[in-house]
Structure formats: C-alpha cells, structure tokens
C-alpha cells in the first residue's frame, strides 16, 4: 500500500487516489501551429524512467484535487508531493 501525502489533506492511503500519469508532458500551446511530431510527443511518447518519476495523481476520494508526486518507480519511495500548479 502506498501512502501519499496530499498537499491539501495530509497523509492518505493509495485507495483514495487515482493515477494520472507522467506530469512532465506538456500539451502544445493553443492557437499555434503544431507539428505532428509535437502531438506525437504529447499524446503517445513517454520516457517511463526506472527511478524518479514526476507524476500526476488525483485525490479522487478526498479533496478531488490533482497533485504532483515525485516517486521512485522501482522502490515506490515518495520523495515529494506538490500542488498541481507548483513546480519541482
């Protein structure tokens, strides 16, 4: 069981959260010319590192806020949690 410290609610069990994937991918800017490669990068391509991974989770059974979590994908150690609009 993972325990995730929600920046809004405190330490809660993994059961309250829903996973949202890699938090480092950036959606191409609106109203600008976007190449196919840029869309490809955003929609499909992922680094999926073994080790530190910055990812999105939603506290779906709590405050319902999206948060960022820096977690090790090999050991599951959680180094840091942030509000969705905060940078690491």
């Amino acid at each position: 069981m993972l325990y995730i410290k929600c920046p809004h609610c405190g330490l809660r069990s993994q059961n309250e959260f829903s996973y949202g994937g890699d938090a480092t991918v950036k959606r191409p800017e609106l109203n600008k010319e976007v190449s196919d490669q840029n869309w490809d990068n955003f929609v499909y391509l992922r680094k999926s590192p073994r080790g530190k991974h910055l990812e999105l989770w939603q506290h779906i059974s709590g405050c319902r806020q999206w948060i960022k979590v820096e977690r090790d994908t090999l050991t599951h150690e959680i180094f840091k949690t942030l509000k969705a609009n905060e940078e690491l």
Partner: protein
Amino acid sequence: MQKYSVFSLVKNAFGGHKDWEVAWKDPTPKSEYDVIIIGGGGHGLATAYYLAKEHNITKVAIIEKGWIGGGNVGRNTTIIRSNYMHDENGLFSEFGMNLWRNMSQDLNFNVMFSPRGIINLAHSDAQMNVYSRRGNSMRLNGIDAVLLNREEVKKIIPMADFSENVRFPIFGGLMQPSAGTARHDAVAWGYARQADSMGVDIIQNCEVTGFDVSKGKILGIRTSKGDIKAKKIGLCVAGSTNVLAEKLNMTLPIETHLLQACVSEPIKPILDNVVTFGAGHFYCSQSDKGEMVMGGDLDGYNSYAQRGNLPTLQHVLTEGIAMFPFLSKLKMLRTWGGIMDMSMDGSPIIDKTHIEGLYLNCGWCYGGFKATPASGWTFAHTIAQDKPHELNAGYSLNRFSTGHLIDEKGLGTKTWIS
C-alpha cells in the same frame, strides 16, 4: 543434440540419470556475431530459434541480464488464444496458434499445450452484441468462435454464480474452443535447447550497459562481460524496453506497468477451461497441479518493482469471487508480479527503427506469452530480411504518429478505464 524420447528416458534410467547432456551450454561471449538478441525471455529465445531454423543465421547471441525464462515468460498465467477482432491481431495470433499446436513436436520438448477453450463471460445484452460482432470477425479470419447463451455457459461452468440477484448476472459468453494453456517454463527451455543446438550462444548474467552507434548505424553493444560487435541487434526486453531505449536516446509509445498474478492452494479438478469475467478484469484457469491460476488488473501506476501491491490484488479477487463464489474458501498459495511494456493502443510493436540494424520487439502489454512463437517467427523474419513480414506489418512503430492505431479495446496504458 540428444533427442528426448521414451527410449532415451529408459536408457538414462539404467545409467542413474547421470549421463544426460546439458540442455544448453554456458558459453563466454565471442567478440562478434551476425545478430545479437537482447533479452533471454520467450520472445528472444524464439527469435533466435527461428533465425537459425528459418533463415539459417546461426552466428547469434542471446544476451540476458538475469537467467533465461526468469522474466515474464516465467511469470504469466499461461493463456494462449487468438480471439481478437482486428485483422492484424487475429491473423497474427492465429498464425501463432498453428505454431503452438506443433510446438512440442517441433522442439522435441513437451510444452504441455492444452487447448481447453477460453470463455469470455458477458453480463449484459450490449456485451452479447459486442461479443457476437467479435465472434463474427474471428470466424471471417478462420478462427473458431462460438457464442454461448446463459444455459450453454451453465453446462460448461456450473460452479459460476448463476443466481438471480447478482450485480453482474451471466448473460452468456464468447468461447474460442481451440484456445488454451501451456507450460510456460517449458516454452522457454524448449526454445533455448533447440537454439543452442543450432549454434546460438545463450549468454546469461550479462547486462547490456550501452550501445555503439555511429552515423545512424548500430555497430555493437557494451555489456558487463565486454563489448560485442554485431551488424544487427534485436531488442526483446518487455518491461525493460524503456530503460534500454533511454541509452539509445529513443522515446517510445510505451509505459512500464506492473501486473500481478496468483495461485490458490491446489484443489481437485473443477475448472476445465480458461474463464474471464466480463464486467471487470479477472481471468482464471486451473493448473495441472490443481491450483487456481488467477490474474487481472495492472497495479495502475508506472512500476519496475516486479512485485505487487495488495489493493489491486484485493480488487481483482473481489471480481473473481463475484464470478466463482467458491474461490472465497481457498487459501492463497503464492502471488507475484511482472513488469509489462504497455503500448499506447494496447497492441505490440515489431519493427525496424530509425537506427540501421536495430530492431524493436515490444509493447506486448499483458498478452505476450501467447504471442511467443508468432513474435519470434515474425521478428526473426524482420531481422533476417530487414523488412517486416506481412503478419507484423501493422505492428509498426510509427503507427502512433500516422494514426494507424490498432485499438483492439482502445485502452492502452490505462486499462483500468474499462
């Protein structure tokens, strides 16, 4: 190579079983090969076997970080099927079914292929319609499919929950009678033994630490046992694909996720088939030892841990008990996990790459075991001929950017969305 038969068994019994030849050797790596296959799992071993058998390329090395068959080929739930709707998946898998049917004879190794049939349960009229459509697509591709109504399902699996007041009543199911199971370890060992006998070097406990690439061409690999040259290199490393891709400065349409499986204590024979729950993600069969072999959802977040987390296991087994209430009486014998190369459309990739001489075999999600022979056969062809076979032409790497996705279920890495 020594042939396994009843005569060799009797002969060696008289000798106290001391004179059996080793099944495969433990060579030190040569400085150069024609082809290097990275990954000594089912797909890698099968690729080396078909390179030697079908294409006469025997100066081949398999480089394995751990021991052969220690990854997903030793961790799966042994299900073999070709019940796909899309042509790419259906024709590819059915080609594989034919290889499965002859595998024990072909490899002179009993892989215990057991075509016991798979039933996908339906729990609504809408789901029956979807299954009927999929069954028709399968039959158009020459794959056997039978749509069963509730009574027909009840005759085959009377121990399932057929009571009236359940959340997900059984409406019927789609059956592929020719689907089944096989002894997973034997598949790895059988391929390894034959590949070795044809001259393939199986190099274990050897980690790939880097690649030698120059002017867009692959020249060789760096390993914990030294540098090895090769003009052609194939990657067959499933959940570790992204780790090696990073060393090649490649970003792939793949995430690595963890999938768990488990077995119960052994019980007397009760279940003849493979059965899947249609209102969630749970599948079950009974091994020859009597254990109920079960699996289901991914843990749900990127993971390289090769061990699972209890909330997912509990969720999966809740579905299992909804389908087969008797499971609640059984003790769990063993649980384990493996890391899956989840592609973004749920279908695999067998293709060339932008680096000349580098070939990619990945994205099997959690359907890799059944694909072992067809994957090895087509990957060997792709490497030997330097172009995909028509069976794996759809499994291209660039289909994501060109929009030619094979969205069998349209789930990709987020399988829990269903």
